[in-house]
């Protein structure tokens, strides 16, 4: 079965047993967001609570600092709420 066919695929090109063939990484949930987390790196103590509790795996740790992957962040604000030093602010998503 070919992987190059455009969507939506015909039944002959689907894997056996109704197995999904794409990872949800291709499905960006960032556009669900109404609020955007903004991290104040100067306040951040790198405790990783935001990384730990983010339901979207959208907080990234590169070994030096945390950042937000806006491709997936749904803007729930758990990171900001759980930040012990209040280094994360939720701001309205720009609407232009």
């Amino acid at each position, binding site marked *: *079965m070919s*992987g190059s066919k455009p969507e*939506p*695929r*015909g*039944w002959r090109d*689907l*894997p*056996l*047993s*109704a*197995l*999904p*063939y*794409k*990872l949800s990484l291709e499905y960006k949930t960032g556009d669900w967001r109404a609020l955007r987390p903004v991290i104040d790196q100067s306040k951040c103590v790198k405790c990783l609570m935001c990384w730990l509790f983010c339901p979207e795996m959208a907080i990234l740790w590169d070994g030096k600092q945390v950042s937000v992957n806006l491709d997936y962040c749904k803007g729930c604000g758990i990171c900001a709420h759980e930040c012990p030093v209040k280094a994360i602010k939720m701001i309205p998503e720009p609407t232009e």
Partner: protein
Amino acid sequence: MIFFSKKSKPKIPLEKQKLMTVNGDEAVAYAVKQCYVDVVAAYPITPQTIIVEKYSEFVADGEVHTEFIPVESEHSAMSACVGAAAAGARAFTATAANGLALMWEILYIAASLRLPIVLAVVNRALSAPINIHCDHSDAMGMRDSGWIQIFAENVQEAYDTTIQAFKIAEKALLPVAVNLDGFFLSHTLENIYMLPDDAVYEFLGGPRKVAKTYVDYLGKEVEAKLDPANPLSFGPLDLYDYYFEHKMHQVEAMKEAKKIVKEVHDEYAELSGRSYGDGILVPYEVEDADVIVTVLGSTGGTVRWVVKKLRQKGYKVGTVRIRLFRPFPFEELREILKGAKVVGVMDRAISFGSFGPSFLEVNTALYDLKEKPLLVNYVYGLGGRDVPPDLVEKMFMELLEDAKKGVVENKLRFLGVRE
């Protein structure tokens, strides 16, 4: 009827096969024992219970490597088989009647996930009122679930078919239900021939081999199983954008399945010397018959005996036993029935408000003929009601009368019920 091949010697001559006196349930248990089954998950229900009892003995005596799961319900029996088969194991379960009804939800899931599970259905009437005896209302309830359904006529065939079922299932990637009539077969002793263990092992090609499929995110063909080396997700949410396409997989698989059932039957016949028609239909005295009766299961033997008797008296009658019910052999059956004046369809089940389930199939098979035989449906034997030869003979006489008149007034008749 068992046809022992006279032309060519079977690969395993009869003297190398073991002659055993067993009932139908034991025959199935012995067959499963030889099939290198990894997981058996089953729950007791009359008249199937002997299968799980017998198999438990094999497990307790260390005669099999099988993990036996004595589940708390038939629903869990089929659910556990789905889990086991998805993990790559060869899985088996058995049930009857209400137990099969309780499995119903998972029957569809097993078939849709394309898991080659084998299920022995020891046919029994559905409640209410509760009844433990034979009819086909249980099996007919699962006819649309995507399972291959094969009906055995006798204990030998139940044994042979169970072995064939694993090979069919794993080739077709569809689950297979082997049907044997409750008590008439399940509890009736018969002398049967059993193949040596290694012959069955070889026939099946050893342990189950899992089919491969291409999955884009892995970028390769992988075995369709739960495998920590190649993570797959079984049983996703499928909405209107893909569900229909996935059902086409099953439609196509069923189309292929008919060929596979025949091939596996033929290969098994060469091995054992035993064949059942062409593996899907078992015709008898049909060539010049004016009246042909179709039948499923153990009643096939009684009908054939009556046909033989009536032929001796000069009546042009014949019968065809439908061995494969799903996928239904429409074309093959049409070829057999097309010359008859009247076709009688025996059903050991009824779809209330309609006809017997196999009548609808036979009707469909004949519709495209220019010259159609007259069709009559005989519903018989519900709840284990006996069908003695004189009753079958009475049916043939009625059908011969219909043939003479050229019209059928009452299409739905009940054989053996008290008014």
